[in-house]
């Protein structure tokens, strides 16, 4: 074998050094300018956005400009503001601005946050973090609280939540859980499906997963029916919607606002680096549980320390 010449070695070292330097330079473009806009809603709702932006400011490597947009502002004004601000990326918080696609075109990356997304958004190639919790977080919690569960049933509207269920199926498999998918088109179909699932899931190995922002889950009439039936049949019900916990679901999650703010900035930086240009569920969450339901299901109370859960219902009097 021919001996490699030292000059090549030197070149190689120089090259490696340069590429490392280039990498440094790239990540050292620390001062990405990120603009954040969100609807200027009234108190206390504004605390949600304020906490997210507070978290963003903790990421000191970026230069962040924040504009709470009053309801009276026109989309054109937003466009002008962005032209003057000249950001590298824009983070849009809330559901309101998703419709302003056209006005928000410019030489910057768009990242959506604190909002729900459907398969449409997914297919349009939008990027951001949904307010829906990452299914693996819920599944892992389920395994911890009810280790006997092996199957999860979920009823969903394909166009709205299909993208989420696809990713959930992958993580379920990794956790040795079987995810039984029940796509439905309307509330009536959903009602029948839920009824069947609950009647057939008296076994403690089956659980029901409720989704957030799904048009087939009617919160007024269907949800109370589901939860009352589940109580009768001692079916474990967990949810992506924290509101369901207060009403009797075993557990769910809440956004961890500050961390979510940090995650959104990281997402923006990743996208500016050409990575992770997609929609993803929220990973930074706080847990909420219902102790009354847990007792009814004879689940061990060991999992109900305040360290595990931010909120425990019922807030017993």
């Amino acid at each position, binding site marked *: 074998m021919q001996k490699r010449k030292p000059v090549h070695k030197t070149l190689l070292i120089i090259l490696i050094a340069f590429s490392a330097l280039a990498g440094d330079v790239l990540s050292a473009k620390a001062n990405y300018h990120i603009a954040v806009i969100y609807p200027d809603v009234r108190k206390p709702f504004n605390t949600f956005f304020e906490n997210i932006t507070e978290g963003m400011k903790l990421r000191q490597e970026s230069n962040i400009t924040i504009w709470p947009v009053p309801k009276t502002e026109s989309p054109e004004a937003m466009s002008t503001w962005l032209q003057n601000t000249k950001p590298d990326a824009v983070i849009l918080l809330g559901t309101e601005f998703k419709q302003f696609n056209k006005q928000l075109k410019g030489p910057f990356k768009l990242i959506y946050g604190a909002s729900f997304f459907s398969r449409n958004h997914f297919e349009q190639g939008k990027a951001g973090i949904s307010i829906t919790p990452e299914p693996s977080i819920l599944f892992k919690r389920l395994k911890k609280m009810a280790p006997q569960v092996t199957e999860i049933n979920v009823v969903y509207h394909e166009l709205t939540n299909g993208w989420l269920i696809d990713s959930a199926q992958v993580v379920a498999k990794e956790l040795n859980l079987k995810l039984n998918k029940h796509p439905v088109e309307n509330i009536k179909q959903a009602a029948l499906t839920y009824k069947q699932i609950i009647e057939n899931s008296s076994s403690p190995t089956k659980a029901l997963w409720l989704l957030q922002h799904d048009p087939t889950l009617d919160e007024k009439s269907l949800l109370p029916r589901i939860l009352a039936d589940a109580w009768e049949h001692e079916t474990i019900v967990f949810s992506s919607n924290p509101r369901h916990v207060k009403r009797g679901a075993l557990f769910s999650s809440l956004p961890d606002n500050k961390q979510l703010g940090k995650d959104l900035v990281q997402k923006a930086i990743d996208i500016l680096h050409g990575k992770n240009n997609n929609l993803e569920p929220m990973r930074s969450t706080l847990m909420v549980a219902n102790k009354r339901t847990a007792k009814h299901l*004879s689940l061990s109370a060991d999992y109900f320390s305040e360290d595990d859960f931010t909120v425990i219902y019922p807030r017993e009097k």
Partner: protein
Amino acid sequence: MNNIVTWLFFFCVLSLNSSAFAFDDEDALIEAYGDEEFLYLATGRKQTVSQAPAVASIVSAKAIREMGARDIDEILETIPGLHVSYAAGGYSPIYQIRGISSDFNPQVLMLINGLPITNIFAGNRSQAWAGMPVENISRIEVIRGPGSALYGADAFAGTINIITKNHTEINGIEVGASAGSFDEYRGWLQYSGALAGWNTVFSGQVLDTHGQHEKVDADFQSLLDANPLLATSASLAPNGVSLGRQSLDTRIDISKDEWQIRLGYQGRRNVEVGAGLFSTLDNEGEADADRYNADITYLTKNLIEDWELKAQYSFFNTITKSDLVLLPPGTNTGAGIFPNGVIAEPDVYERHNRIDLSAFYTGINKHDIRIGAGFHHQDQYKIEEKKNFITALTPFGAVLVPLGSVVDVTNTTPFNQEETRKIYYAFVQDAWDFAPDWTLTAGLRYDDYSDFGSTVNPRLALVWQTSYRLTSKLLYGRSFRAPSFAEQFNINNPVAVGNPNLDPEIIDTYEIAFDYKASEDLRLGFNAFYYEMQDIIRFNPTTANNTGEQTGHGVELEVKWKATKHLSINGNYAYQSSEDEATNSDAADAPQQQLYIRANYALTPVWSINSQLNHVMDRQRAAGDLRSDIDDYSIVDITLRAREIAPNIELAVSARNVFDEDAFEPSLAPGLIPNDLPLAGRGFFVELRTSFN
């Protein structure tokens, strides 16, 4: 009655008007979060799980602001089964719970952040309490029924726990002011932030008011004046009650990791005497009060596995100084004329030191165990008194003998004595999930008092999660009320002689309670109770003795209904019947029935209106009081609020007692103020607030 009809009509019009305003962004947030409550919770505020099942009501800061309350009594009046009445002297509040009422009201325990603010002299919250502003209150939890198994003495008829705002509940710097009828001016400043790594909260609230001035047409002196043998014409009646005062309330709360330190001060100046300590109008008398508190708490969950440990030291110092004209110039009670009136200047100084250790253990499956022990030192360290009379007992009754001038009697014939009391206590409570859906909570507390000995108070609660919507509770508890130093050590007052050998008052209470969630928007609570009081302390006839017995029963119904997205309705109804066993007659003064309804309606995203009706019914006289029963009354308040009238400016306009209803609270039997104590007529108040981050 017309007033009620008008109010109901008003309310109906509002309901009909429920056009849909779109709060788009907010709707989306509510969907993400569940509801408004989570917005706060997710910002890091931990819930406090209450320590034992009980019949309880909670009023949040949000509800307090909606109803436009300015003083804590306005909030407490909205609690089912609780009516706020007033004593003639200083219009000190009497929190009548389930028919249990007395002039000094020591049967109710008031806590601020879990620490008692009871004054040992009279067992109340000071003779110059003079109210408490509400801006710094995060929530108020009121437990009706027994609480001694956890809280010790005085959690007897009920416990009122006032929880102040923590650092997550104040938005940077908040300032506000209000002004209105009775020359009332209020101002407040609150701050929340991090100083040197400590979460820091500061709150300061000031008040200056002339107070309502409703007329009393005759008083106790009028009765004396009517006696031809005394030949006086001294009464100031008819004249208005005197309720002017100034107050300053400040609090500092700093916390970091396992440590929390809180300091508080309540100052009261020029507190006027209401309708007088002797049920006699007095337009010169005043009292001042200074109340300081401090506590330091260490709470850890990480020291030992499965154990949450808490250690707390607290200090409370309370000083009340009074300059009173008990009877007006020219009075004569049968032993001589007082040209300057009957003057009394009693001052009481006391301090409390407490050490409390408690632990919460979750290491045994299906059991939550709470244990604790502590020490409480009560010290009435100074009594001072000046007066221009002595009291003498004659065959015709008590008479006041003039001394000619105001004399310092501190070292000769003071009204009470410097005394101390030591209390050691220990408690244990276990909540046992003995079957699915069933929990039995059993608690026991032992208190050892250096004066009257020991007392053991048990508590049992059986909670059954009956169905998805229904929770049922069966409760029993025994509580005690420790005698006050006035009851034990009063001297030189022949009509109210203290008795050092008193035992505590005792109450046994049985309750059955149901909590039914008809839907997410409609929640109903119902309870029925029965209680037996023994060893009630009375000056009978002139010396304090454990002579009284009282029994009572009743029901309470509570409704919380979110009728539409913009309209929420809260209401409650309470019925009680209590009997004084000595006379076999109604225990008197407290309403047998009470109805409260509050509607809050969001007119637009900016404007909201809150209206409330409080209907107080069926208050009987004590045995031997021949006056006709106390009139019922209905008071309607309306508050109009604009959250963002201008950027970051909130405006509220409030009308209290809109229909100017004549409302009265009972005066002392047999009718020292014959036509009772008048409450405020119509009043208007304007409030402005803003915040800076």
